[in-house]
């Protein structure tokens, strides 16, 4: 075996220029794929966290059955009443993967500073639970002034653009108006606790966070429209979804459970797009690797026809010739990938040190360009490249192995 590896290796370095070009093609392809994987991995992770924690949808959201279809026209009927809220939360919090379950009521209406008014949307949240859900995102959404707190029930957190439009700053007073669930017009005083950037351009001009109790008062109700569940790990999402679904059903509660992935269309869209871009890049790299290896090995096979004839005369079998070139291909794939690993580490390190930022579409502030270092993917791609180059080498070698020995020997 040793001898054949030596023979392959020497043949690779014999043709320095040609091997160099092939190795570079493999190395760069390898680097491109791994950098892109690292980037998408970090982006998915960021978007996932931003959906689950940043936008506050948690991992699972529980609605009363029918809410998503009929809730708009008859909200009162499809909301969860106080008794049910307690019952559901009690059941859910028995699950080991659940960190917390919290009721929420989303409201909308008109907010006015006395002179101007505009529409608003608000999440009615339990302040302490909201802070838990936000987790590390609490630091990413800096609030000027104070955050929500239970002590001041009419204190709200207002998005930057909305506050600017209404010329409101922390401590200022305003009025919100909305229809109660019975259809009565209701108006309540609010005070701006804090002003903050939601991170999303699209909602910065109409969004607020208000205490859950305040939302209930505005709608004159004791109900919640959903219960948001936070888990210890996003990977448990669908398992816990099914467990909870069953437990609630057994308890006689009719509900629907949506996952963060279902609720975050943005995440799915971006992931879909990136997955497609990845496939595209991968197939291009695949082409380059296969074609350049087939080309290199093809030339090598032709140049070494006489050598192949000699080896056959000395007694190597056809499959021995195939193996010889397979080793050579695999070695090209391996060396190319190892060079690729070096490139990848270098670029990864440069990005890590320089930490450049960019503003993704739909985002209201720049985010750091992050590339995760993924040993598993690197190893998988290494195997992939070796296998590809091996296959690419066998294609021309098979022809050489099958030709007549005398013809091969007579080849000049």
């Amino acid at each position, binding site marked *: 075996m040793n001898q054949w590896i030596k023979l392959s290796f020497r043949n690779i370095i014999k043709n320095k220029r040609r091997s160099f070009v092939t190795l570079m093609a493999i190395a760069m392809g390898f680097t491109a794929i791994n950098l892109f994987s690292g980037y998408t991995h970090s982006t998915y992770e960021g978007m996932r966290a931003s959906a689950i924690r940043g936008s506050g949808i948690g991992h699972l959201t529980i609605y009363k059955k029918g809410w998503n279809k009929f809730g708009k026209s008859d909200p009162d009927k499809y909301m969860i009443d106080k008794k049910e809220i307690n019952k559901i939360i009690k059941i859910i919090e028995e699950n080991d993967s659940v960190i917390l379950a919290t009721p929420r009521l989303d409201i909308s209406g008109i907010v006015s500073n006395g002179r101007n008014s505009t529409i608003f949307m608000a999440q009615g949240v339990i302040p302490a639970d909201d802070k838990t859900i936000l987790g590390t995102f609490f630091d990413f959404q800096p609030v000027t002034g104070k955050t929500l707190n239970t002590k001041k029930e009419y204190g709200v957190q207002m998005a930057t653009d909305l506050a600017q439009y209404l010329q409101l700053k922390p401590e200022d007073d305003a009025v919100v108006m909305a229809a109660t669930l019975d259809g009565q017009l209701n108006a309540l005083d609010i005070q701006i606790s804090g002003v903050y950037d939601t991170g999303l351009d699209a909602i910065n001009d109409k969004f607020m966070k208000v205490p859950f109790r305040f939302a209930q008062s505005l709608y004159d109700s004791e109900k919640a429209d959903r219960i948001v569940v936070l888990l210890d790990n996003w990977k448990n999402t669908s398992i816990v979804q099914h467990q909870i679904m069953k437990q609630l059903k057994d308890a006689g509660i009719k509900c629907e459970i949506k996952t963060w992935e279902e609720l975050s269309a943005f995440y799915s869209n971006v992931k879909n797009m990136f997955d497609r871009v990845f496939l595209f890049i991968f197939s291009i790299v695949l082409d380059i690797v296969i074609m350049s290896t087939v080309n290199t090995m093809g030339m090598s096979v032709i140049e070494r026809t006489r050598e192949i004839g000699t080896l056959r005369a000395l*007694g190597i079998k056809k499959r021995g010739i195939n193996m010889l070139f397979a080793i050579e291909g695999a070695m090209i794939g391996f060396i190319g990938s190892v060079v690729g690993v070096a490139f990848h580490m270098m670029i990864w390190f440069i990005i890590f040190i320089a930490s450049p930022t960019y503003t993704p579409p739909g985002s209201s502030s720049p985010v750091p360009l992050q590339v995760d270092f993924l040993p598993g993917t690197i190893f998988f791609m290494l195997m992939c490249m070796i296998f590809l180059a091996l296959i690419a080498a066998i294609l021309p070698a098979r022809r050489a192995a099958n030709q007549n020995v005398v013809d091969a020997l007579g080849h000049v």
Partner: protein
Amino acid sequence: MNLIEMKNIIKDYYLGETIVQALRGIDLKIEKEEFTAIWGPSGSGKTTLLNLIGTIDEPSSGDLYFNGDKINNITDNNKSEFRNNEIGFIFQTFNLIPVLSALENVMLPLQIMGVSASKAKKEAFMRLSDVELEQYVNSRPDKMSGGQRQRVAIARALITNPSIVLADEPTANLDSKTSNSIIEIMKKINKKDKTTFIFSTHDQRLLDQMDRLIQLEDGRITE
């Protein structure tokens, strides 16, 4: 029993429409330990005949026997094994592997056989000293003269202790002094190891060294 027996061997080459009759009915017996030359002008079919004995080519018709066993219709894998075990090839153009040293070239047939590297190395070293190339074991072929290369090829052909060594015009690319020494080396090995040698040559000067002469003309033996 004859080591090699050929019965009415015919070999035709097809070149488009025309048929080249390279061998037109060869009957031939070669015994163990013979030191035989196949002699004839260029184009008479010498190379074709050796290739058929060496099983790297197939006859159009006729049969080939080795130690009494018919071998012209065995599988390709069996032929490969047969060549590896029983045949040593020496080519006019040496055909050494350029990226391997003299020693590694000589080791090859044993390694194809599956012999361990250390054992193959020892054997190869011995064979290279038989042809007086101890000092060149680590040299690549392109650093050697024609005579040296052919001696490496002889060592390679002999390393498996084959039954037959087939040498197709082994001296054609060498000057006459070198040619003589090459033939002498082979003669010595023939006496010492009782290896059968079959040459082809059109060089008359070498003929007095031979035990037996087979004369070939237009694909027929004229003897």
